[in-house]
């Protein structure tokens, strides 16, 4: 029998939720574990097999000098590197520091900021090394994760759409929360994948899968303001878990300045 492909899972600055998504595939976990050699997954196992690894799943963003070095090493030992989630793909919620001075943040939280070793910014993995595939979401969707792993094992392209949440929402048969109830919603500019759960529960999408391909954030911002949200509210909406994804960052900065110019 040919050796099983080696799978490694790596953690950078994150909440561990995307790694947990792997263990949350309760119905498929043992099948996955049978199709690959889980060679390095510290959240789940103390057994570590030496690299190189056929597939590396990387969770989290780069926020410390040590991690900036470590990601280089991870890239060196990985044939195919997939980032999982908003932190690894866009910098995550901790990238809110990028809009201010990190010293000030450190002083607000820690009695002795001098003990810390931290970078000015939180950056996605792709800012440091070439990334072979990016999986969106805060957290990622289990179904999409399984699709990516299956596709890699079968050596085909993953079937992960880059269309908007709106399309998924329509398909679910939801009545538009923005049109019908005037609720602010990022669905028109956010990449699908979650199953449009927020509108299904009567709230607006908050963009945790990040910007879709070619999002029209200017038009949506204008519509949000016409619906009664002020500049600050629109800025906050774009500035959460994918705050430094370029399209969302441009949209939030435009509202921060108040000129709407992207």
């Amino acid at each position, binding site marked *: 029998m040919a050796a099983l492909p080696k799978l490694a899972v790596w953690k950078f600055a994150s909440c561990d939720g*995307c790694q947990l998504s792997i263990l949350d595939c309760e119905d498929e976990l043992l099948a996955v574990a049978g199709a690959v050699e889980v060679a390095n997954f510290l959240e789940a196992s103390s057994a570590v097999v030496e690299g190189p690894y056929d597939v590396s799943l990387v969770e989290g963003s780069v926020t410390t000098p040590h991690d900036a070095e470590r990601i280089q090493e991870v890239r060196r030992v990985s044939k195919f590197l997939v980032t999982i989630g908003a932190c690894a793909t866009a910098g995550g919620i901790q990238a809110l520091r990028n809009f201010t001075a990190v010293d000030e*943040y450190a002083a607000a*939280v820690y009695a002795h900021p001098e003990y810390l070793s931290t970078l000015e910014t939180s950056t996605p993995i792709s800012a440091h090394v070439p990334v072979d595939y990016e999986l969106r979401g805060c957290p990622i969707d289990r179904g999409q994760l399984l699709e990516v792993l299956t596709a890699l094992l079968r050596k085909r392209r993953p079937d992960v759409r880059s269309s908007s949440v709106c399309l998924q929402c329509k398909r679910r048969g939801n009545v538009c929360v923005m049109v019908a109830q005037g609720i602010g919603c990022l669905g028109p500019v956010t990449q699908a994948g979650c199953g449009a759960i927020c509108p299904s529960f009567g709230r607006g999408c908050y963009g945790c899968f990040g910007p879709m391909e070619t999002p029209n954030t200017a038009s949506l911002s204008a519509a949000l303001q016409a619906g009664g949200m002020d500049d600050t509210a629109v800025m906050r909406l774009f500035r959460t878990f994918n705050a430094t994804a370029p399209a969302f960052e441009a949209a939030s900065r435009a509202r921060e300045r108040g000129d709407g110019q992207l």
Partner: protein
Amino acid sequence: MHVVLAEGEVADVKLRIYEPPRFFEAFLRDRAYTEPPDITARICGICPVAYQMSSCQAIEQICGAVIDEPIKALRRLLYCGEWIESHVLHIYFLHAPDFLGASSALELAKDHKALVETALTLKKVGNDIMEAVGGRPIHPINVRVGGFYRAPTKRELLPLAERLRWARDAALETVRVVSTFDFPDLEIDHDFVALHNPDEYAIVEGRVVSDGGLDIEVAEFPQHFTEEHVPYSTTLHGHMIERGSYLVGPLARYALNYDQLPAIAKQAAVEAGLGKVVRNPFRSIQVRAVENVAACDEALRIIEEYEEPDRPSVPVEPRAGTGHGATEAPRGLLYHRYSIDEQGTILAANIVPPTAQNQEAIEADLRKVVAANLSLDDHDLQHLCEQSIRNYDPCISCSTHFLDFTVERR
């Protein structure tokens, strides 16, 4: 982890946690008072509901919102889902492999396939409760300050009842299985701290109590507890003023709230040979398993009694002030404090997670473990120390298999 041995005695034990700082308390400032449940959920992907619940409670206290009883019951149900998911994860994926000599649950599946399949099915029940009530198991989207965006229908919840009856039996079986393990000796004497509620096993609300006689409102927490920043760790060390190190989590909850456990969970504890107080952290796996029975039983009760509430949330209008919230995360007491202005903009935020509170106690216990096992070589000592850390179910990222273990012999 760094151990210093001098002349055959333990001189020092330090647990360096290098979890990169993410500065939640800093970037919560200038956000809207409605945002903490979504934002603070991202502190922990394994217990997001805990962060959502503690933050909602603190904000609601500031704004003087009174939450309807049916909404409270839904919150408790959602929280039970998180307890089941998190406890099962810890019991079977983190802790049991240590006792059964496996490196992971995946390896365990080779010899104990039925056991791991039961674990996965049980964990899935917890996740499915969170999905039904919260929209998804990790970072639920349906929680808001004041309640929920939409209350689940009776039809959405009822299919869970049958599965919970199975889950409760599986949880009872879990208690039996883990009780056959061989537990190393260790007796700890820290103060236990947990929420206490005379009417139920405290999860979502209660007073902060300790076995040393503390009995305070959540709002008095800052007068009795403090956090210290030590040079070698990004996790602040919690400290009880006047008493020193203390322990939160299953052992503390169980000791302080035994009387409030549902009868079926008490029965399981008795059959497992547990007293009303357990002071051996290696036995925390049994206590967690008993709590899991309680969580399944509670979730079932809430679903059976469930009627769709008149409204999914109560209105919460901002007003200036400071508020406190504390709930029982699977790993222990989680405290939040916020100050907001009259527009609802957050001026200050303070979050004290369970793992930070347990840091000092964990270090003290590691010192005991090392002192009692000096004859072991470094490799075996490292394994025992890792296992000891896993007893506390600290935030999973640092709980697992990370130890860079150094022993300095002088």
